[in-house]
């Protein structure tokens, strides 16, 4: 018996109705009684020493209740961060990047807060900052972070934050075996998340508790951060995390919640800070990179070695950037069998927006470099660009990264499908080119997800879990698992999320993990219920439990088949009640692993592009864009397509148009929607085809793998390759704007 909405179908999105009626409440839609409106005091400089902050005039504005400056905060300045506790609540004596908050106003109205912000007088001295990799590495460069903040760090007296080394084998010993060696450098610029919902935060002190509302992806991490900063027990911090309006990594970690918490505690009133879109450019971005790839190959195109150096330009505070850079660098050699690999990565501090997780987690930058270099090698060797990839792909089960999860899919199927869909061997029209590229990302390396499923007496169910549904559709997929396992229609299931006082702990919503990790947890909670139902059936029917089988909504025993709900109703009797199941999915740290954990799964994608370049304007027109992912099992095919298409178009954004521009003083010059363009419906490829390979070979329930990032990992190199074939141009920096392409064409002639 299959209940409506069970696994493999595409029922209406759970929460979809509220999303089309406007009833869905995001943080900014929630108001608290007696709330104060907060605004940030900033200066228009990339780096400056703060001499004084005079709030006298600002305090006179009617309705102003608080102007929080560093002197109102504990000394030394409290700091926090997911990797290093380096981010201060407010700029600590020095503005270290454009837009770092210096003070904050809380007032009865937004207007009063804005007026007061304009009246706060900040005296400062502009300091020279470092805004690029070269400037940061200059031996005479000022230090972004004072060495005292970085005790016991080997590079504390430079702007290098961390160096990491991965790899296997000895390059020196094998170099001679390569017939062909190529070395190239590729750059990837700063881009920003641009979630349509800007970050928003509210904090309300209530008795001995703090209630916090945030657009955060990881509510439990926010809870831990605030508990430590404020010395409160976790139980006294209640985090509400309404479904975010898009996250893409930019909402993973705490940002301004601690500041708002201090303001709420100082005033004793709820404080609300809704960021502007411009301010989000000063809050989150992707690391820009310079990646040097040196590849050694045989004349037949077999890879001999890969020697890669990655430099990630991170911001003034680390946030999660070290993890991004190390985790991505670790898979720099990509989905290939390479006998010897040497990877040296660095994160480099700069006076720019702190970089953080962003869909693809550092991998798109490296993939751009690796796949383009591989194409250049194929051209040099006279080997077909598809063939050079196919021949180096590991078979399923091959441990292509020694000591890590073996290749967990039949990746050749994915590549062949993409090649077929783009028509790789078909003749090309004049002025067009094709490109194909592979992307590989290591899924979550650790995880801890608890869940509770309550099967109620009327055959409906509640699911409690700490995942954030930021558009990926976790509510729907988790409901489908329960529909499948309880044999009840999806319409009778509600998913409760986003309240740390109600739902059990979940480590985080990131790395395309939720279907696999929380999905397994919910599946196990259902199995827990199955066990209880079996005991009920055995009691009711006087049977041995061993002779009773409970599976997929049905209870079976000698000759009989009953729906779970029927057994439960009989078992519960006239008092009614419910059957409660708990689930846990734990992926522990592996201390000896270079990333402290092997990949739960790999996200593997092949993107193929056909493009045309206008030689008058340099404009690239994408004729056809094919993305194929290895998804294991699509629990909800419609949502899988939605994720895949969305990531593909986001990939076209950083490939064709997106870049954050700074002036020589480190000020971002294109904040907001007018000057920073993301793709619109008018920028779509003439044809976009999203397909997937399903072999039910993932670690998640029913063989699922994570799917939300794959199709932006290798968009850029596929487009770059198509442009090269169309024009003969090799461009090694992004985005491929008409201007850049046009200039390259002009230079070429």
């Amino acid at each position, binding site marked *: 018996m299959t209940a409506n909405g069970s696994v493999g179908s*595409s029922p*209406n*999105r759970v*929460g*979809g*109705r*509220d*999303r*089309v*009626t*406007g*009833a*869905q*409440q*995001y943080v*900014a*839609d929630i108001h608290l009684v007696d709330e104060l409106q907060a605004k940030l005091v900033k200066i228009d400089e990339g780096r400056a020493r703060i001499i004084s902050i005079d709030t006298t005039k600002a305090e006179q504005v009617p309705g102003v209740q608080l102007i929080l400056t560093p002197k109102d905060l504990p000394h030394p300045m409290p700091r926090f961060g997911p990797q290093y506790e380096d981010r201060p609540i407010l700029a600590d004596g020095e503005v270290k990047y454009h837009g770092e908050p210096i003070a904050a106003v809380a007032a009865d109205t937004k*207007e009063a807060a804005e007026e007061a912000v304009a009246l706060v007088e900040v005296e400062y001295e502009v300091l020279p900052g470092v805004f690029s990799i070269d400037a940061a590495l200059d031996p005479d460069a000022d230090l972004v972070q004072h060495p005292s903040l970085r005790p016991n760090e080997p590079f504390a007296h430079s702007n290098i934050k961390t160096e990491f080394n991965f790899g296997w084998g000895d390059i020196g010993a094998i170099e001679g075996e390569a017939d062909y060696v190529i070395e190239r450098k590729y750059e990837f610029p700063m881009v920003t*998340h*641009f*979630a*349509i*919902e*800007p970050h928003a935060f509210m904090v309300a002190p209530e008795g001995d508790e703090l209630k916090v509302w945030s657009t955060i992806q990881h509510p439990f991490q926010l809870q831990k951060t605030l508990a430590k900063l404020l010395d409160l027990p976790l139980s006294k911090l209640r985090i509400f995390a309404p*479904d*975010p*309006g*898009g*996250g*893409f990594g930019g909402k993973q970690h705490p940002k301004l919640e601690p500041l708002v918490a201090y303001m709420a505690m100082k005033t004793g009133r709820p404080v609300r800070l*809704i960021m*502007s*879109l411009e301010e989000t450019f000063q809050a989150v971005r992707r690391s820009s990179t310079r990646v040097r790839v040196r590849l050694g190959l045989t004349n037949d195109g077999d890879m001999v070695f890969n020697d890669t150096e990655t430099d990630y330009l991170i911001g003034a505070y680390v946030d999660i950037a070290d993890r991004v850079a190390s985790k991505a660098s670790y898979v720099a050699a990509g989905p290939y069998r390479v006998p010897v690999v040497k990877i040296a990565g660095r994160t480099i501090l700069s006076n720019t927006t702190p970089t953080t997780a962003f869909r693809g987690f550092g991998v798109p930058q490296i993939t751009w470099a690796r796949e383009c270099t591989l194409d250049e090698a194929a051209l040099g060797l006279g080997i077909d660009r598809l063939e050079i990839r196919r021949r180096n792909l590991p078979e399923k089960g091959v441990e292509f990264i020694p000591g890590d999860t073996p290749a967990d899919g039949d990746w050749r199927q994915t590549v062949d499908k993409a090649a077929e869909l783009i028509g790789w061997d078909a003749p090309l029209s004049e002025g067009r080119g094709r490109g194909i590229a592979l992307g590989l990302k290591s899924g979550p390396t650790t995880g801890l997800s608890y869940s509770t499923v309550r099967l109620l007496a009327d055959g409906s169910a509640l699911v409690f879990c700490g995942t954030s549904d*930021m*558009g*990926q*559709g976790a509510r729907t997929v988790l409901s489908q698992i329960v529909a499948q396992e309880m044999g009840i229609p999806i319409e009778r299931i509600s998913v409760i999320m986003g309240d740390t006082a109600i739902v059990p702990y979940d480590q985080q919503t990131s790395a395309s993990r939720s279907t696999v990790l929380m999905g397994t947890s919910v599946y196990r909670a259902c199995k827990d219920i199955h066990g209880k139902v079996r005991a009920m059936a055995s009691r009711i029917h006087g049977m041995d439990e061993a002779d009773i089988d409970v599976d997929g909504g049905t209870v079976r025993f000698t000759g009989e088949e009953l729906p779970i709900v029927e057994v439960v109703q009989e078992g519960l009797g006239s008092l009614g009640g419910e059957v409660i199941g708990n689930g846990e999915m734990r992926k522990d740290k592996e201390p000896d692993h270079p990333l402290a954990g092997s990949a739960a799964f790999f996200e593997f994608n092949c993107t193929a592009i056909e493009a045309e370049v206008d030689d008058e304007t340099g404009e690239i027109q994408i004729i056809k864009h094919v993305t194929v992912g290895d998804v294991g099992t699509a629990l909800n095919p*419609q*949502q899988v*397509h*939605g*994720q895949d*298409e*969305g990531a*593909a*178009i*986001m990939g076209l954004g950083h490939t064709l148009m997106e870049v954050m521009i700074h002036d020589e003083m480190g000020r971002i010059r294109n904040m*907001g*929607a*007018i000057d920073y363009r*993301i*793709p*619109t*419906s*008018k920028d*779509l490829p003439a044809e*976009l085809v*999203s397909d997937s390979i399903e072999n039910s070979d993932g670690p998640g329930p029913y063989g699922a793998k994570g799917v939300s990032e794959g199709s932006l990992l290798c968009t850029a190199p596929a487009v770059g390759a198509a442009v090269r074939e169309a024009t003969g141009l090799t461009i090694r920096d992004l985005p491929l704007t008409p201007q850049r392409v046009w200039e390259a064409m002009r230079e070429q002639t």
Partner: protein
Amino acid sequence: MSEVIHIEANINGRDRAFEVAANHTLLDVLRDQLGLTGTKECCVVGECGACTVVVDGMPMNSCLMLAVEIDGRDVISVEGLATDGRLSTLQQAFLDVSAPQCGFCIPGQLMSAHAFLQRNLDPSIEDVHEALGGNLCRCAGYLQITEAVMLAAKAGRE
């Protein structure tokens, strides 16, 4: 304090009379004064379309309109699309093809599409892309949104 002005407007089918501050945008008034938070705020410079509402049949960025400008006019926001709890054909189509992901851009997309379909029930895909070109979505690849609008157009023709 800014000057307060009395206005009368039809909002989502209901005649209403209320005071607005002269400097408040329609977006401010819808969200903060009338509690119609379905209309979203993102860029506030008329570039993202999240705040789109329909004024006298035309899609407008409510962040760029002063509230006083709606005096004597008809305004429809996303809350006004469903009747008696029944989704409009357009809303149902969005739901059926899973067009909303995070959903934050969706009210704006719906309002642009609603106004567009009043004028054109037989659009090409390019027409839809053009009509919704001012509505940014960062989650989806616009394909499912376009499909929904085409589906609603078809249903409207039948």
